[in-house]
């Protein structure tokens, strides 16, 4: 492998480069640069996925130093899948955001582009990190960039939501760092690959404490019930492209980290308390869906739907020990929800621009005016409900399959019930949209680009179900399952 042409480091360097350039260009500039950079990143991610499928998982020593002195990057199937999802969704949203911010209609874009670039660099670095401390640094960078994006809207409510998000995020990273300190004290290393065989059920108490702290930190960052309180205000008050980025990608990054720890290293502890994230996930599905059904603001509805969909991710933990099906279900849920939620927030951004308001009630008559967007919302809803042939269907099918195989049919019941509840809030929006508009209603014009991006993302989330086998093959590369 040629050292310079390896895609691993470039996936981190490219977004850093265009983000810094966009910052230098000044407020609101850099959209075209971002799209160019993201196209390159997507190509790199595809290249990496292709290489992994033929050559297997691999490690890249930054600067040729290598662990333990230097820092290693590592890529396996799961990281490649996350990278592909991130670049795909981010590229689509960049095209969307360019139209969204054009002409100053969506509020000031000020530092949207540089912050997005830093966010993506942090996220790509997180997916490629091979040691616990590097993960801490990338997690903090990701959190800071995300908070900056929430605050970029500028209003009082946005800043308040951003500040709350920042404090929660810092508290969680602090707990994670304390966990890293305890692990380093016990084993003298932070490399995940070295730690995995070392940690077993006979580990000292400090390591158990560390595992609990780190798992808790990641649950807070992923907004698992009852730690979801920060998510709806932060995701619900940001501009549409930001909400989409945060809901589709950022919460998945901390979940990825938890999954990584759970599969490597903390497997021994996982067996003891696997029921806990499962139960919290089940409550999240029910509570999030009910709040979504009751929400009067459109964006809050979608944000609470994220709380519910995150619940499905945590249902896999009690089933992980019993084979690879639950693992595959989790990965499918990450990808399909990522695409569907980005589509849904993008569609909501279009609807809000057209009606000028953020309430579900204002949607009356939208069906005739914005059929493409409404269709996109519906398709994304199909994925969230888990109807075939969507990616969401595949994820839920695998989950139910895993639950029945292990005789834990209770989880299967939660999955099916959650699908019905999701139908509740999706159809609430659709029903309102098909009502006749009051005669005096005025609809503002919305750029076509925005509508078609929402549609493209939604269609991808549905068609994903047809290409599931390829994704699962990629997931199998060097993975734990």
């Amino acid at each position, binding site marked *: 492998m040629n050292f310079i042409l390896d895609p691993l480091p470039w996936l981190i360097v490219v977004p850093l480069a265009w983000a810094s350039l966009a910052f230098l260009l000044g407020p609101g500039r850099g959209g075209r640069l971002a799209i160019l950079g993201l196209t390159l990143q997507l190509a790199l991610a595809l290249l990496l996925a292709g290489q992994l499928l033929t050559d297997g998982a691999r490690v890249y020593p930054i600067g040729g130093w290598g662990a333990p002195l230097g820092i290693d990057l590592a890529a396996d199937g799961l990281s490649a899948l996350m990278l592909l999802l991130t670049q795909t969704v981010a590229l689509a949203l960049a095209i969307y955001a360019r139209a969204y911010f054009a002409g100053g209609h969506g509020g000031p874009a000020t530092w949207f582009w540089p912050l997005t670039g830093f966010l993506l660099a942090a996220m790509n670095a997180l997916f490629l990190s091979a040691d616990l*401390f590097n993960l801490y640094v990338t997690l903090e960078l990701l959190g800071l960039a995300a908070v900056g994006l929430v605050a970029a809207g500028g209003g009082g409510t946005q800043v308040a939501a951003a500040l709350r998000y920042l*404090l929660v995020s810092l508290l969680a990273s*602090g707990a994670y*760092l*304390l966990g890293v300190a305890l692990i*380093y*004290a016990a084993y003298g290393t932070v490399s995940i690959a070295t730690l995995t065989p070392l940690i077993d059920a006979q580990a000292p108490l400090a390591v158990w404490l560390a595992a609990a702290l780190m798992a808790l930190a990641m649950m807070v960052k992923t907004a698992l019930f009852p730690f979801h309180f920060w998510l709806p205000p932060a995701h619900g008050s940001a501009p549409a492209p930001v909400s989409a980025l945060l809901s589709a990608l950022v919460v998945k990054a901390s979940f990825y980290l938890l999954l990584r720890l759970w599969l490597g290293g903390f497997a021994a502890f996982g067996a003891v308390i696997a029921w806990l994230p499962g139960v919290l996930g089940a409550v999240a599905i029910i509570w999030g869906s009910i709040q979504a059904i009751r929400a009067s603001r459109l964006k809050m509805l979608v944000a609470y739907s994220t709380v519910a969909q995150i619940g499905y991710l945590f249902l896999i933990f009690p089933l992980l020990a019993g084979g690879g099906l639950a693992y595959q279900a989790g990965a499918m849920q990450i990808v399909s929800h990522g695409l569907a939620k980005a589509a849904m927030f993008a569609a909501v951004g279009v609807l809000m621009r057209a009606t000028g308001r953020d309430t579900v009630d204002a949607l009356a008559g939208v069906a005739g005016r914005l059929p493409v967007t409404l269709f996109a919302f519906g398709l994304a809803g199909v994925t969230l409900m888990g109807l075939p042939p969507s990616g969401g269907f595949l994820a839920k099918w695998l989950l139910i399959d895993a639950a029945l195989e292990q005789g834990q049919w209770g989880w299967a019941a939660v999955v099916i019930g959650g699908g019905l509840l999701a139908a509740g809030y999706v159809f609430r929006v659709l029903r309102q949209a098909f009502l006749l508009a009051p005669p005096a209603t005025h609809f503002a014009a919305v750029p076509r680009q925005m509508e078609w991006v929402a549609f493209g993302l939604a269609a991808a989330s549905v068609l994903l179900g047809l290409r599931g086998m390829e994704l699962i093959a990629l997931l199998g590369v060097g993975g734990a399952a």
Partner: protein
Amino acid sequence: MSAGLIYALAGVLLFVMGAAGVVMLDHLLRKILAFNLLGSGAFLVLVGLAQRAGGVDPVPQAMVLTGIVVSVAATALALALARRLHRAE
């Protein structure tokens, strides 16, 4: 009780005080200060517990340096946001 362990226990104490402060205090500036206390606690545990055969282990020192940079950046962001919130109100 070794010196390292004393540092680590003090670190845990600081961490717990900081965490309690972030959660329970009302005043925004105090919350931000409490976060710094929490961070320092974690750093103290990192440096204190990891001793290499009586000597100093350089790896956690490097980690703490990185951690300090991160926490300075986070504090700066929190202060900037607090200032903006104050102006918006």
